[in-house]
């Protein structure tokens, strides 16, 4: 067991993957000399050199497109986008190229790249640096989507992502980098694509991922003090989506809340809610309740920013209303 931060777990995953596989390299803005805007790649250039920590100009479409080409040509690029908000600039390379190449070309070739980026609120960074855009990715066939919420998962999901045959979008949460947890990375990880039940309780199922896992667990603690026991599922990967774990938790309980930081409308929570409603309809006592970001851009104002996304309090309060 060792105490480790989410940031250091990500760095170790890159380090270990690069040590084991010569084909793995990192490409992006400030990933080398600077060590990454959030410090994830700090120091790696000293060990692996500037070819494998390739600093780029500020040219996001070409960064992602270069990774696509390098993956097709046989290497395993990790392209870094400093903020998920910049994914809009790269949408063609990601969604029209990376996501579709295997299919369009009749299965001749895949694009085994990882696009690492980070999103979410927590720094008063405003409307263009605080978004949760995972729904844009999840909506595109051909892309895997990973959103680690724990230190252990930051390490193992990145290692697993780097073994996938297809493009993986790996979205970290900016508010988690400094989070430190006691981890034993030698414990073998769950299979790729499996969700994990973080807490079991008989009254309510909370399905979530990324930073909201912590809000859900805090809420569950608070609720436990009031006699309400919640199950908390951490999805870990949104594509593949482990619906079986959700089903097994939902069917005996029949009450579900889905929590996501992204905007409510047509978001990840909407998809999960629809799927649960379709597949577990006969078991539900109540509608599936979505707790998600408000349908508004994120403000710089500290107060507005905090109020526009789910908090532990909101999750707990909603649970109490559901069980009232």
């Amino acid at each position, binding site marked *: 067991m060792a105490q480790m931060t989410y940031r250091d777990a990500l760095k170790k995953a890159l380090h270990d993957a690069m040590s084991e596989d010569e084909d793995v390299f990192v490409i992006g*803005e*400030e990933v080398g*000399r*600077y060590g990454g*805007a959030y410090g994830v790649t700090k120091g790696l250039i000293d060990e692996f050199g500037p070819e494998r920590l390739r*600093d780029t*100009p*500020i*040219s996001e*479409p*070409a960064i992602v497109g270069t990774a696509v080409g390098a993956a097709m040509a046989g290497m395993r690029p990790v392209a870094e986008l400093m903020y998920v*908000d*910049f994914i809009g*600039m790269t949408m063609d390379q990601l969604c029209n190229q990376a996501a579709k190449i295997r299919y369009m070309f009749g299965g001749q070739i895949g694009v085994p790249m990882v696009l690492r980026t980070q999103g979410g609120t927590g*720094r*008063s*960074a*405003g*409307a*263009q*640096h605080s978004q949760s855009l995972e729904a844009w990715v999840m909506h595109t066939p051909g892309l895997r989507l990973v959103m680690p919420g724990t230190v252990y998962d930051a390490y193992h999901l990145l290692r697993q992502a780097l073994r996938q045959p297809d493009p993986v979008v790996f979205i970290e949460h900016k508010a988690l980098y400094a989070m430190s947890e006691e981890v034993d990375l030698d414990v073998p990880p769950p299979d790729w694509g499996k969700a994990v039940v973080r807490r079991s309780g008989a009254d309510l199922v909370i399905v979530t991922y990324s930073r909201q896992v912590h809000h859900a667990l805090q809420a569950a603690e608070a609720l436990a003090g009031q006699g309400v026991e919640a199950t908390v599922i951490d999805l870990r990967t949104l594509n593949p989506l482990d619906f079986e774990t959700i089903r097994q938790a939902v069917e005996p309980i029949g009450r579900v809340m889905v929590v996501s930081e992204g905007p*409510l409308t047509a978001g990840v929570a909407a998809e999960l809610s629809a799927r649960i409603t379709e597949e577990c309809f006969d078991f539900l006592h*109540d*509608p599936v*309740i979505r*707790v*998600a970001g*408000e*349908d*508004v*851009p994120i*403000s*710089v*104002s*500290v*107060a*507005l920013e905090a*109020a*526009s996304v789910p908090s532990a309090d*909101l999750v707990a309060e*909603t649970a109490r*209303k*559901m069980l*009232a």
Partner: protein
Amino acid sequence: MGERDPKTTEGSNTDLVGLYSQMRRVRTFEERVGELFVRGLSAGSMLHLSIGEESAAVGVCAAMKDGDTFTTHHRGHGIFLARGADPERMMAEIAGKQTGYCHGKGGSMHIADMGLGHLGANAIVGGGIPAVVGAALVAQQRKTGAVSVAFFGDGAMQQGILYESMNMAALWNLPAVFVCINNQYGMGTRIDQATRATALHERAIAFGLNGETVDGLDVIAVRDAAQRIVDAARGGTPGFLAIDCYRFFGHARKDKSPYRDADEEEEGRRKDPVAFARAALVEAGHDEAELDAIDAAAVAEMDATIDFADRSEEPPLSSMFRDVFAVGEPEPEPLADRIDRVLARD
């Protein structure tokens, strides 16, 4: 470039006094932004100071007219001030307060004021550039006589959208101006680590725009170059101006620039347009007391901005739902209301 004698050039000393005083206001404002952050009163740490770049903001804005429009990058406080912004409302915005230009929604990186032609600062590198093409297109079609100016950093020189924008501006003879404030760095990347084509204006010339590079040490030289470029754009030949300067401090408030050595920083900070202008004024016969009074006025003005920001209210939570769409359109339903409505069904 840079080594001009202020006594023998066309910029009169009166002009230089005005330009100096504007540059001093910008510098003092930025120093107060740094203080706002240190005192924990700013909304976050993503604050990008334009210290060392004052001549770019002040020199180019001196060549603009009422009715002209502009966009800026994330390091745009100085430009906005030089176009006439109220520093108190700016500081309040940087603190995320209701009294700020955007009521706390935009902050330092997304500040705007349509009244002053500020179509918006931008946190996406290159994101504000094409809007200038659109504004210039409207100015041309409506024959308003206005120009539209995009301000951006050297980092944006490697964004494709700049070339799409310049190409269209040239193709259609638009009154558009592209101003690259080349402070040598995009975060930790020096310009020569981002491109081999460091004669930046040549790229614009290749697309059929006027293009110049000017040393930002001398605000008069910047203003004169900007005047040429802006006047030609008003006449239908869009232009590009690169202004060489040095980013005196870190990229944002938390960056200590470990990627630059102390010698380089010392050398870079010697390219100080404010000190240069002051020395030129002294040499031209202005006495120190007069210049000290200008400095003191800037200090008094900018000190007040922190108090104003600190005293101002946070935006009300209900404002979160305002301005997603136009006034009069339905606002998004708050999450809590929806949940209550859904759960109240049975």
